[in-house]
């Protein structure tokens, strides 16, 4: 390439990339630097910030509430991800066949994905309400006095996880369906001739060939799951007795209710670190497993 060509090409491309470059630098890269800087300060948005070194990080290790929030988040992720993934996989198995009207059912299963989390959390709060809620009315028909779901420290978090499962199961089903449709039918035919049962075919052909899809679904869902906020805010406000105070809620209340900017920044970075480590582990786990090439 002659000198000058590169400059000319850059000049030609600049108008196209400039707006997004400004956006990425100003609203993604600069904030990551700022949050790192803020985590070394004590600041309440109003009085001048002052340098405290690693104090925010040290405080974080001393106070239970950060670990409590991380534990609550992990507990939520455990109620959310396995069930949601199994639901998605099950739905995909049901719909992955050549029968009429399955497209219609597929659309109905994906429908919850399009709902506003805040609005749907209101609807679910109503249904799980202890006194007038629909769930307890139904239980009463069976002669059971239902609990105060969202007022219980044991039940509130699983109920919130169930709302997420309802919202995203069908969405994830689409990825599994797309993955299943790339598996060549000849593999199943060969296995059938060899007398493999349908269960065996699923575990020996379908599941291994869905490895890449599984990785994608798990990585994106776990990242999303660790950041649950809207549903918690509407359904429980982190309660009862902080039983649903997930890390995102803790960051929000530390930064914007207690105006402890430094601590909130340190917690954000902790969450970032946790998510990075878990994503890395997931990639390692799925890479070490056998992958199959299908031509």
């Amino acid at each position, binding site marked *: 390439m002659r000198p000058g060509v590169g400059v000319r090409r850059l000049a030609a491309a600049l108008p196209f990339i400039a*707006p997004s470059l400004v956006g990425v630098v100003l609203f993604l890269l600069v904030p990551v630097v700022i949050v790192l800087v803020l985590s070394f300060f004590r600041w309440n948005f109003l009085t001048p910030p002052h340098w405290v070194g690693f104090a925010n990080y040290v405080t974080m290790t001393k106070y239970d509430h950060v670990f409590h929030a991380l534990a609550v988040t992990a507990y939520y992720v455990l109620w959310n991800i396995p069930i949601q993934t199994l639901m998605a996989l099950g739905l995909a198995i049901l719909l992955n066949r050549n029968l009429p009207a399955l497209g219609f059912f597929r659309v109905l299963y994906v429908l919850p994905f399009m709902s506003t989390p*805040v609005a749907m959390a209101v609807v679910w709060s109503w249904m799980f309400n202890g006194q*007038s809620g629909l769930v307890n009315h139904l239980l009463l028909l069976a002669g059971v006095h239902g609990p105060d779901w969202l007022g219980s420290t044991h039940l509130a978090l699983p109920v919130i996880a169930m709302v997420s499962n309802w919202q995203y199961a069908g969405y994830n089903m*689409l990825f599994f369906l797309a993955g299943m449709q790339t598996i060549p039918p000849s593999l199943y035919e060969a296995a059938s001739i060899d007398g493999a049962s349908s269960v065996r075919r699923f575990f020996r052909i379908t599941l291994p060939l869905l490895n890449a899809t599984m990785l994608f679904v798990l990585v994106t869902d776990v990242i999303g799951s660790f950041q649950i906020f809207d549903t918690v805010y*509407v359904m429980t406000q982190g309660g009862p007795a902080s039983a649903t105070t997930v890390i995102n809620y803790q960051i929000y209340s530390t930064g914007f209710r207690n105006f402890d900017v430094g601590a909130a920044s340190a917690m954000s970075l902790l969450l970032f670190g946790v998510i990075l480590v878990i994503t890395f582990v997931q990639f390692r786990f799925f890479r070490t497993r056998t992958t199959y090439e299908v031509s």
Partner: protein
Amino acid sequence: MAAAKTLKYVAFYFCLTLIAAVFVAPYVLAFFGAFKPASDLYSSSPWAPPRSFYTGNFSAVLFSDGFLRYLGNTALVTGALTAGQVGFGVLAAYAFARLEFPGRDGLFSVYLATLMVPNVVTIVPLYTMMRELHLTNTYWAIFLPYTLGVPYTIFLMRQYFRSLPSEVFDSARTDGASERQILTKILVPMGRPIIITATLIAFVFGWNNFLWPLIVTDSTSQQVLTVSIAALQSSFGQQWNLVLAASLVALVPLLILFALFQRQIVRSIQLSGVNR
């Protein structure tokens, strides 16, 4: 034999219908509830359809302090966010997919790397920036961070633009077409499916966005729908008929969108997974 097979099909479709009921029920029940007066809502069978379509809840909510304004705010902010995210995104995706310039791939890896940054990490610093710029409590603050170009949408569109046949672009260039003409006459018509997808993703994101508007607006005049529904829920606590009606106002536009574009939505979700 044939009877057994028929029975199997009936059982199969019955099963599918039951599952569908679980996914659809909250919508139907919210719809029923929003059209009932408070007294009926607390009756012994909250799952029953309303006896008559009582619209009092909607008029109470819609004409209560500023709800229509919040709806307008959401529409405005979502519109600006969608237009910017898609428009600037198309430009960037075109450059990354079809233009050659030094540093292109390095820059694109930087864009991709930012996909790893969780939303909440940027919330505190973004708020700080908006405060310094005196932009809190403005529409700008709500949509600006998500408007100039979002790496995820750029990535999606770039993948699609790269898959288009390059002969079309090459022959247009030899015919002396300007980049601008190539963009409007070739890229946009050919990239229609992915542009629709990006538009839907941006719209749904803007419409549902909650944490950021909650933080960056504290006056009521710039409040958006999601924030006002959450506020209604905490102030009207047990008046479920009112909060249900308000929630339905937020849910219905997305339902209509889904009904209109279900094919594109289903395909676009799958596209976003397969292309990763």
